[in-house]
């Protein structure tokens, strides 16, 4: 028995009921197109929202935490060595926030193959002086070039050129919120007071907007040297080392390794931003559930139409069986009808899915918190197309299987004698 002839019969049956076949195919097309565009859109949004935080957050942050020493003098005493010692209200001593041997650590990390890039950072507590009023502030001393390369710094500098941080001495990029309060314009000189009580004049060369108002009200950026000057420290002073990895998922393991190796505190992105992962995960699950429901519903459509086809074509099935076609051949015919509906629907669905995604991608969308986005985000990941196609094949196969089985069991004697 040649498959070709079974397919010829299948095609003839489909053509005989081409309207129903078309409706079933459109059902599959519709569900696949929606599945693809829905998931692409949802994932695009997820990436955008996660990117708000994750792109700007180092995968691992090395710093000296302020905490009381784990070993207290009594633990060293020989006399009380074997006792349980309880000390309440232990206070940290005057630990420095500086990272010792920062340059060597950075050098070592740069040669690590798992590390994508390293950027040093200094945080300095300051007050922005505004006449008689002092506003709380934090100045981040950064290496502007590295910050732009690793943490998309340039996306968030909405006015001015971030490169001028390095070329203009005593310059500052103000948070948009702080700038609004201070009524500062580019080129203005503002005064800040350090926690040590010293006053500095800094030139505003740009504004920065992260999308989170609380951060924009407080944080500003300056170059490493400017910040070191503010703090009255030498040019080796660094309080944070920010690491971007090649593989984000290795962050927790590597954080532990670096902590041991450099005898320093390390915090990974997963620990620091656990809530973002959860949010994206739940959104993905919801959109997959909706998408898969669509595909299953279209499977029921195919099931119905094939069932109807079988009732209408009982005579044909009976005559095929009477002339020597086995139940299995009949089953193959109906499964190939179902699969052709699936394949045609899937191909058309992928086409319309891309089209729909492109349309969503072109709809203007702007939000003050996401300055570099102008249209709705879409993720064109190949995985959605593959999942949609595979799932469509499986549902149409199953939807065809049950009616096909029924068709293969048709008793030709009943049909032929029943007339």
């Amino acid at each position: 028995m040649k498959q070709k002839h079974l397919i010829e019969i299948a095609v003839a049956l489909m053509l005989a009921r081409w309207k129903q076949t078309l409706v079933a195919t459109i059902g599959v097309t519709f569900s696949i197109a929606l599945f693809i565009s829905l998931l692409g859109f949802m994932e695009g949004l997820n990436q955008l929202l996660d990117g708000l935080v994750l792109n700007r957050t180092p995968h691992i942050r090395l710093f000296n935490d302020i905490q009381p020493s784990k070993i207290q003098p009594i633990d060293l005493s020989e006399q009380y060595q074997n006792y349980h010692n309880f000390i309440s209200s232990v206070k940290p001593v005057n630990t420095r926030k500086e990272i010792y041997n920062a340059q060597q650590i950075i050098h070592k990390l740069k040669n690590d193959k798992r590390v994508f890039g390293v950027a040093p950072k200094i945080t300095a507590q300051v007050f922005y002086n505004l006449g008689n009023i002092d506003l709380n502030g934090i100045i981040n001393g950064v290496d502007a070039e590295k910050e732009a390369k690793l943490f998309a710094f340039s996306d968030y500098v909405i006015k001015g050129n971030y490169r001028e941080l390095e070329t203009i001495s005593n310059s500052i990029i103000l948070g948009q919120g702080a700038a609004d309060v201070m009524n500062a314009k580019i080129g203005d000189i503002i005064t800040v007071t350090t926690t040590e009580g010293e006053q500095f004049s800094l030139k505003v060369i740009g504004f920065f907007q992260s999308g989170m108002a609380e951060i924009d009200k407080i944080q500003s950026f300056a170059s490493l040297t400017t910040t070191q000057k503010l703090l009255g420290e030498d040019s080796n002073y660094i309080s944070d080392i920010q690491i971007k990895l090649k593989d984000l998922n290795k962050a927790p393991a590597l954080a532990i390794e670096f902590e041991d190796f450099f005898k320093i505190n390390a915090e990974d992105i997963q620990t620091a931003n656990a809530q973002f992962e959860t949010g994206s995960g739940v959104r993905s699950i919801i959109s997959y559930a909706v998408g898969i429901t669509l595909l299953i519903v279209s499977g029921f459509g195919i099931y119905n139409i094939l069932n109807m086809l079988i009732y209408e074509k009982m005579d044909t099935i009976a005559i095929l069986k009477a002339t020597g076609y086995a139940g299995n051949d009949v089953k193959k015919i109906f499964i190939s009808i179902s699969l052709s509906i699936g394949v045609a629907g899937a191909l058309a669905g992928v086409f319309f899915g891309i089209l729909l995604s492109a349309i969503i991608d072109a709809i203007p969308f702007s939000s003050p918190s996401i300055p570099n986005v102008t249209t709705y985000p879409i993720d064109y990941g190949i995985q959605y197309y593959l999942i949609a196609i595979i799932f469509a094949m499986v549902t149409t196969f199953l939807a065809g299987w049950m009616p096909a089985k029924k068709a293969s069991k048709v008793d030709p004697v009943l049909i032929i004698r029943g007339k």
Partner: protein
Amino acid sequence: MENSTVLEARGICKSFYNPVKIDVLKDVSFKLKRGEYASIIGRSGSGKSTLLYILSTMDTDFTGKLLIDGIDLHYKSEKELAAIRNAKIGFVFQFHYLLNEFTAIRNVMLPGFKLNKVSEEELESKAYEYLKDLGIENLAHKMAYKLSGGEKQRVAIARAMINDPLIIMCDEPTGNLDSKNADIVFNIFKELTETFNKTLLVVTHDLIFAEKTGRIIELDDGRIIRE
């Protein structure tokens, strides 16, 4: 091969349970030799159609022994029975039963696709030859549903012939035809037995038709009462 037995029924019994047991066939035994033209007659409900469908291998729910071409058909799987039906038995039904989605010649070729012994081109020329023998070669490429009753029945006969079967079974082949077409069909059958040496088994209640066949098996109440 001349006069060898192609079909043998030994003590075939069949009962329906609906809701009480009714014996439809009671110990039916007979043999058909190659080239025989036999008809089964009987009143309505005498079990003649039931017998035919048992002999055709489509109805497997019976007791007794059925041999086609010396092969015992008991305990054969559905797939094996289908293959036997395909290669050794041709069918002509009362209601023509062509596939309306295909042309006449495609309908004729259908059992040949399943047998898959010759190429499609060969099969097509063979089908065309049969149509020509039956005088309807000009209808070969017409869709089946556009044919008249007599034409359809002739296409069905060509289809029954395509795999060169041992035996052709017919269930009231002339029941739906006028006397002119019935005569044509009868003559075709006669020719099949005489020139092609086929075995024919026809179920009919048309006594005039049956009288003209070589052998009459009369059933009444599930038993053979006359041969």
